[in-house]
């Protein structure tokens, strides 16, 4: 059981994750990256309206934290959580339809690109108020506790969100009641054009956890293995009723805040440094070293994902916008019809 695996096994054991998991993480990293880059490209081609928030460079934070969650676990995302949506299992088709705001999207075009959500997959459709879903996700965790379920919630936010009052109230409450929740901060150094030092006079944002009575850690957000293992540990604690954990993932967004932001407030040097820390080649190297990945496998995977995206794009582009009447739907339950305007 041990002798014939001496080449790869030791490292896997060291890493502490299974081959399946390592591959699963890779799969979602790739899927997130390829979808994200496709969205960017299509935005520049003018193929959909609004704007687009890319998370390229940050994939390890979301993929690592979300991989392995159950459908009933709840994600409270913000605007830069494409990776969480993908990894939690929202079908690519739904996501593309959402960005294209078509009638085939779950929200039927009502919101805004990048506001992915799915009840079936336990992802809260985001509102835009920064840290909004941190509060709501904490409420889900409160419910799980009352319901005596071992579901958990994972709230994602940027370092900028930690300056918001609602964010504080949520973490404070979660600490008092030891709620089953992970607070995952994607610290990408910038909130739009504003550097992290103007969001809080603190070295590590994870230290804020102390103010709420639960542990916080700052980790390399571009190392999907570290993120995943840290999250798994925190999830175990949460499911066991031991309360929240604050995980600050240091990372970087490669592109502008949204696609219309040239991001010229940052230095080229800073960008270059971080591009070198791309989470994907890093994980690929590990997989390659472990013998899990080969160039052929990679190619096959890219092809598979690209095809899925192609189909999804085709589906979305062939879908119509909803009829104007759709505007009147889903305001209330069927108990309350909306007052119609005359003109």
């Amino acid at each position, binding site marked *: 059981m041990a002798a014939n695996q001496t080449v790869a096994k030791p490292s896997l054991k060291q890493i502490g994750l299974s081959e399946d998991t390592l591959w699963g993480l890779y799969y979602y990293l790739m899927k997130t990256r390829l979808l994200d880059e496709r969205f960017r490209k299509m935005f520049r081609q003018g193929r959909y309206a609004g704007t687009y928030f890319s998370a390229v460079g940050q994939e390890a934070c979301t993929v690592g934290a979300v991989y392995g969650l159950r459908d009933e676990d*709840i994600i*409270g995302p913000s605007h830069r959580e494409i990776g969480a949506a993908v990894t939690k299992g929202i079908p690519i088709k739904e996501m593309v339809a959402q960005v294209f705001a078509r009638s085939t*999207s*779950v*929200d*039927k075009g*009502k*919101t805004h690109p990048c*506001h992915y*959500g*799915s*009840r*079936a997959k336990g992802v*809260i*459709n985001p*509102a*835009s*108020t920064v840290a*909004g879903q941190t*509060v*709501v*996700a*904490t*409420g*889900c*965790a*409160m*419910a*799980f*506790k*009352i*319901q005596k379920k071992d*579901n958990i*919630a994972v709230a994602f936010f940027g370092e900028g969100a930690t300056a918001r*009052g*609602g964010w504080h*109230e*949520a973490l*404070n*409450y979660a600490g*008092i009641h030891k709620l089953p929740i992970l607070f995952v901060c994607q610290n990408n150094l910038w909130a739009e054009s504003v550097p992290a030092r103007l969001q809080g006079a603190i070295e590590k944002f994870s230290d804020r956890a102390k103010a709420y009575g639960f542990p916080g850690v700052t980790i390399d957000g571009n190392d999907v293995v570290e993120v995943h293992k840290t999250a798994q540990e925190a999830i175990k604690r949460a499911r066991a009723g031991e309360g929240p954990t604050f995980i600050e993932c240091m990372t970087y967004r490669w592109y502008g805040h949204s696609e219309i932001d040239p991001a010229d407030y940052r230095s080229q040097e800073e960008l270059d440094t971080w591009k070198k820390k791309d989470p994907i080649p890093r994980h690929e190297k590990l997989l390659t070293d472990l013998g899990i990945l080969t160039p052929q496998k990679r190619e096959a995977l890219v092809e598979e994902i690209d095809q899925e995206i192609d189909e999804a794009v085709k589906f979305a582009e062939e879908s119509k916008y909803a009829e104007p009447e759709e505007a009147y*739907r*889903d*305001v*209330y*339950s069927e*108990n*309350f019809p*909306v*007052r119609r305007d005359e003109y």
Partner: protein
Amino acid sequence: MKNTTYIEAITSALYEEMERDESVFMIGEDIGLYGGVFKATKGLQKRFGEERVIDSPISEAYIVGGCVGAAMVGMRPVPEIQFADFITPSMDQIIQQAAKIRYRSGGQWTCPMTVRVCCGGEVGGGLYHSQINEQWFFSQPGLIVVMPSTPYDAKGLLKSAIRGEDPVIYFEHKRLYRSVKEEIPEDDFTVPIGKAAIRREGKDITVVAYGLMCHKSMEAANILEKEGVTVELIDMRSLLPWDREMIFESVKKTSRAVLVQENTKTGGVMAEVSASITEEIFDYLDAPVTRVCGLDVPMLPFAPPLEHYFLPNAEKIVRAVRKVLEY
């Protein structure tokens, strides 16, 4: 039947709904052991435990926002805002989350939540313990807004709200807590949301009001009756949606309307009622639809003469009715 005050009606509705459905829970400041600053939740924590009657920290944003999340995953939260004045810190959660989660998710997620808000003046509360702020929610599609004026409605509307599938802002008027009392059924009953109530039939003029103002209007109607004027008094009860049909029918009959609102006049609920009457049944009107409202100053100054001056009362309503009748 049981002789019941407005606040007892609220307490018993909460009690019964928590008994009926274990997904109902409450969170708010001082609602636990203390039983709420007005004792509306008295005894509930003892009966249902600390997990279902939660003393929250002073965190209105969380109180509401957390309940949105809980509602989304199967609970029926009944958060309490201790005073309507302190609903401001939770505006984001009410407007951007509760009111819109159904809409923005294409109906996937819902928010069956009842925010109890203790509100209103004539209790010597001054600038920061007398507010209502109902107009903010009244103008937000996706929310339901109600304000009972009787114990029967207080109980029946609260039950409807808790059992419903939409976020409800339930305004309870603190001036009415112990000042109104009536016989109400001991059996389970609900009051439908969206329906007004005719409190007194009349043919000369329609008076529309809600909350405390129904009682002021009733006083006015009693005075006017002695002058041979019969007032048709409508209690809106539900503000959003409001019962357009009943109000329009009444005004079609009387051709005259006075609208009474406790809050500041400009931009209040009665502006909409007036505008809608004009828009929809203009031809029936024999006189301008006229509002009697709180003053256009911050609601409301504390000193007794100032509070009195701010608020509509029977006298002011009588004056307005007479003027409209003379028109």
